[in-house]
């Protein structure tokens, strides 16, 4: 049934945006982390979204109908911020420079707002679908 399929698509959108919000939280929480398991400071993470067809490609409608999928979680390759702070335990002993995470708080906040809006858009789509389903059930009454 098309309505249930649409609901699955909305679910994929909600999931993707939640993954994105989780990564933003992780980035914000680690904005000052200088030690990681991999060595060096924390590198900010970004989700990569792709559109995936919901059914077989031979059906024109199902090929056009795409859900969203988190394809990968990629570390941001931009260089770390270099801050002069000789008293920091992780500072270079000769230069006094500390490599800080490449997290920009402003950028993360803007990202967070966009992710929340996109999440809400999915919720709105779901509400519309739910209302349609409820109305369809009234038909025999």
């Amino acid at each position, binding site marked *: 049934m098309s309505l249930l399929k649409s609901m699955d*698509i*909305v679910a994929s959108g909600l999931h993707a945006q939640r993954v994105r919000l989780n990564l933003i939280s992780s980035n914000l929480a680690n904005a000052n982390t200088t030690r990681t398991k991999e060595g060096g400071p924390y590198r900010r993470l970004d989700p990569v979204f792709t559109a995936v067809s919901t059914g077989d490609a031979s059906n024109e409608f199902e090929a056009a*109908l795409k859900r969203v999928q988190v394809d990968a979680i990629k570390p941001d390759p931009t260089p770390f911020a270099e801050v002069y702070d000789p008293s920091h335990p992780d500072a270079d002993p000769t230069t006094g420079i500390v490599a800080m995470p490449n997290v920009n708080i402003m950028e993360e906040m803007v990202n967070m707002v966009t992710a929340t*809006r996109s999440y809400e858009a999915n919720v709105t789509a779901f509400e519309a679908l739910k209302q349609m389903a409820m109305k369809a059930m009234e038909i025999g009454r």
Partner: protein
Amino acid sequence: MMDKVGTTFAGGINVTIKFDNASAALEASLDLRLQRQALLTANLTNIDTPNYRPVDLKFQGFLTEAADGSPTSKEAHEIMTMTEGVETLDGNGVDLDTQLVKLSDNATRYNVQLELMRRQLAILRYAAGMGSGG
């Protein structure tokens, strides 16, 4: 002996209730509204997917065809991919406001058509009960 369902009023006009024709048009229309809702939902879901182009369903011609009572075919609609319009830096073409308006417009039309169908069935039920209310 009645050979046809209908009523002849004083003016001599024969009114035949064509339930089947109207139902077929409504049914086809509801079906397409549902498909369009699915496509619009997919657009909103892919609002942050790079290089995603929004899709929509064009079915005006199909609706007129169905209303004429001519044979309906599901192939008559057309899925369109929007190539023009706004585009963000990642190549995504989904505009939140446009899509939300389309989504609520389509949902409202679907609900109205469902209501029409419900009332049509209610009339049928009323008639079947000879006016006793069901």
